[in-house]
């Protein structure tokens, strides 16, 4: 006699929301950064407070050199950044945003 036992597996799928995903990603990235910081605890201790004081942006001044390191995504987005009087963080951020366009464009293309 063969006895069959049916096993019902109930999958609980958590619905991901933009807010949840953004918060989780930021939290994950923050933890990763803190872990990374641990490797430089001595140096970091000596410059504590400077990181959030805008010194990076100040130091970058008006020079935009990131343009010289244009990522493929920038080319793909058809954006040519040559030179401008902007803070480095601003440019870096915009490069990243443009990278976002590239990712969106790629995703839409793949979905067609």
């Amino acid at each position, binding site marked *: 006699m063969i006895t069959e036992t049916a096993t019902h597996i109930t999958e609980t799928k958590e619905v*991901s*929301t*933009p*807010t*949840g*995903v*953004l918060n*989780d*990603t*930021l939290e994950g*990235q*923050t933890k990763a*950064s803190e872990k990374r*910081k641990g490797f*430089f605890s*001595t*140096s970091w201790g*000596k*410059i504590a*407070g*400077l990181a959030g004081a805008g*010194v*990076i942006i*100040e*130091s*970058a*001044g008006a*020079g*935009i*050199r*990131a343009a010289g*390191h244009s990522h493929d995504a920038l080319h793909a987005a058809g*954006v*040519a*950044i*040559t*030179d*401008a*009087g*902007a*803070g*480095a*963080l*601003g*440019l*870096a*951020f*915009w*490069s*990243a*945003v*443009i*990278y*976002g*366009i590239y*990712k*969106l*464009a790629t*995703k*839409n293309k793949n979905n067609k």
Partner: protein
Amino acid sequence: MAQPIIDPKETLQQILTIVNYQGDKQAFITKYLALCEQNTLLALLENLSEEERTAFEEKLDAAATPEEKKNVLREQFSEEDIAESSYNETKKSFGEMMQKLLPTLDKNQQEELKQYFESSAKALQDKLQLSNE
């Protein structure tokens, strides 16, 4: 201090509005930009050799005031180094965020976000052209 062409805070604010972020937008923006800056600084430190890092720490020890410490930092890292690190670190974190965020958006939000990026990229191009003329 030079101002960014387009304010990253404003951009993040727009993105959070489009995706209907339900939390404290300002807190999120502040935390994210601080993270970008911290990662930039960490990337710079990672690029130093052990000898360079030791020398850097000694200079920081000798600096008595925050202003002197800032000067040590400015002397240690060139604008090119900072810009490159900032670009790489921000691209990495923002790219990861986008990859995770996109599948959670409905078609309207995706389209709205795409249009916002495109119009912003166009505005950026126009500003860059103007500044070069």
